[in-house]
């Protein structure tokens, strides 16, 4: 097998070889007062995979992603990206792209200016802003203020912001919310292509049927605890669906 090289010159390891995890979550715990939002959670992600991060509302998915992205501090354990705490990464925008569930856009700012602000702060050339606008097909509305955008357009703009730095790891919180069927189809193909280049995706979702078509493996949590993790083809027995497995594990089906 020929050794693959990505555009940065870093060798991309073969899929089954021993590789350093891109994301390493170990014994991660976060409490809000009496509530344990994330409870001794451990999992890791290898490069070139799309991982679905599944669980009921309030299971701690968003909190886990916030801990991984350095927006919140854990009470115990750690969440590392590329072997470092996020806040200690050099040039994080060039390594990790993320979109959280809330769209996180200023309604009075244009889509293009939203991306230009991020590009300036990350010292990314402005040509990249135009490339990303083209990628998410927002060129025609780029100078309109975000308040005039549909939910799907906002999601695509936020995704463009996450991709500005051409990251190796993409973290998405419920990205399919507000996307129409064509948008969902586009996102699925995009994520597969992204992972096909040896990059890594962690995507939280409620949409199990959609997730089953997009992801290679899942991490399922409930009440902050890990309940299952593994490749889809290992977890799902023939004749059953991801939904069956999920509802069985999270106590939602009976």
């Amino acid at each position, binding site marked *: 097998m020929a050794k693959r090289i990505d555009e940065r010159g870093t060798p991309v390891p073969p899929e089954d070889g021993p590789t350093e995890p891109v994301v390493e979550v170990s014994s991660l715990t976060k409490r809000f007062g009496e509530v344990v939002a994330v409870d001794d959670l451990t999992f890791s992600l290898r490069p070139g995979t799309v991982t679905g991060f599944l669980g009921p509302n309030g299971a701690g998915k968003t909190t886990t992603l*916030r801990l991984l*992205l*350095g*927006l*919140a*501090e854990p009470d115990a354990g750690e969440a590392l990206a590329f072997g470092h705490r*996020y*806040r*200690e*990464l050099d040039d*994080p*925008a060039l390594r*990790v792209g*993320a979109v*959280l569930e*809330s*769209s*996180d*856009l*200023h*309604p*009075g*700012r*244009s889509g293009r*200016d*939203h991306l*230009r*602000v*991020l590009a*300036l*702060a*990350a*010292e990314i050339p402005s040509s990249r802003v135009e490339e990303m606008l083209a990628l998410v097909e927002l060129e025609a509305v780029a100078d309109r203020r975000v308040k005039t955008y549909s939910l799907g357009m906002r999601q695509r703009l*936020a995704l463009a*912001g996450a991709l500005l730095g051409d990251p190796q790891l993409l973290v998405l919180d419920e990205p399919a919310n507000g996307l129409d069927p064509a948008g969902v189809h586009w996102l699925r193909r995009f994520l597969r292509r992204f992972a096909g280049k040896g990059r890594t995706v962690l995507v939280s979702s409620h949409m199990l049927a959609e997730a089953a078509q997009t992801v290679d493996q899942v991490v399922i949590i409930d009440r902050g605890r890990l309940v299952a993790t593994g490749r889809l083809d290992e977890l799902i027995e023939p004749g059953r669906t991801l939904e069956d497995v999920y509802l069985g594990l999270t106590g939602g089906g009976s």
Partner: protein
Amino acid sequence: MKAFLRAELLKQRSTRTGLGLFTAMLGLVLLAVLLHSLLPAEDLTNAHTQLMVFGRGEFLGALFAALLGALSITAEIRHGTIRPTFLVTPRRGRVIAAKVVTSVMIGAGFGLIAGGVAAAVGTAALRARGIEVLLDEGDYALLVLGAAVAAALWAAIGVGVGALVRHQVPALIGICAWLLFVEGLLAGDLVGLGDVGRFLPGAAALAISGQEPGTLLAPAVGALLLALYAAAAALAGSLATSRRDVP
């Protein structure tokens, strides 16, 4: 640092918030100065009152600069853009520092224009009524430059307050209430802080433009004291932002 500054400047330029604040400030400066210049002529024939009337520009410049500074962080928290901001720049102290520098620069511009407009319009209004203006060039220079310095430093206080309070409405109401109301009560006869009142940050701002000499601090002392308040507020806001979880 330059990259963060350019990003912060673009944030300011790319919404209408700054222009809205500037327009509101200018309107209130004109209103305040013109209304005061309608006082009975015998009340306006002393330099002390003329300084007070023209000094409304400085007060409003400082108030709106503080609101601008607070909004630079609370608007990001309100709309969630604080998250992409800190994802790109996880060293949060640098973001707050860039907000302080940007707000100080724009705040200085607010103060310069508010102070200049108040002095010019006030002078024209008094002259139109045939009232002699008793201020010299030094007084004018202090009114305009003092307004710029006071507004610049209050902009930094605004960033600190915004970073500490985080919620937009309480932060803005808090700043307005302090400058328009609370400080006056504390310094006034009611609470009886008396001499201590001149060391409060609103009084220090007025001192910079040479208001009420003898009662307030000397301009240079006022500027130094307000700079200490600004540094303390910015530092507290920066530390709190670095240590607390992002909303």
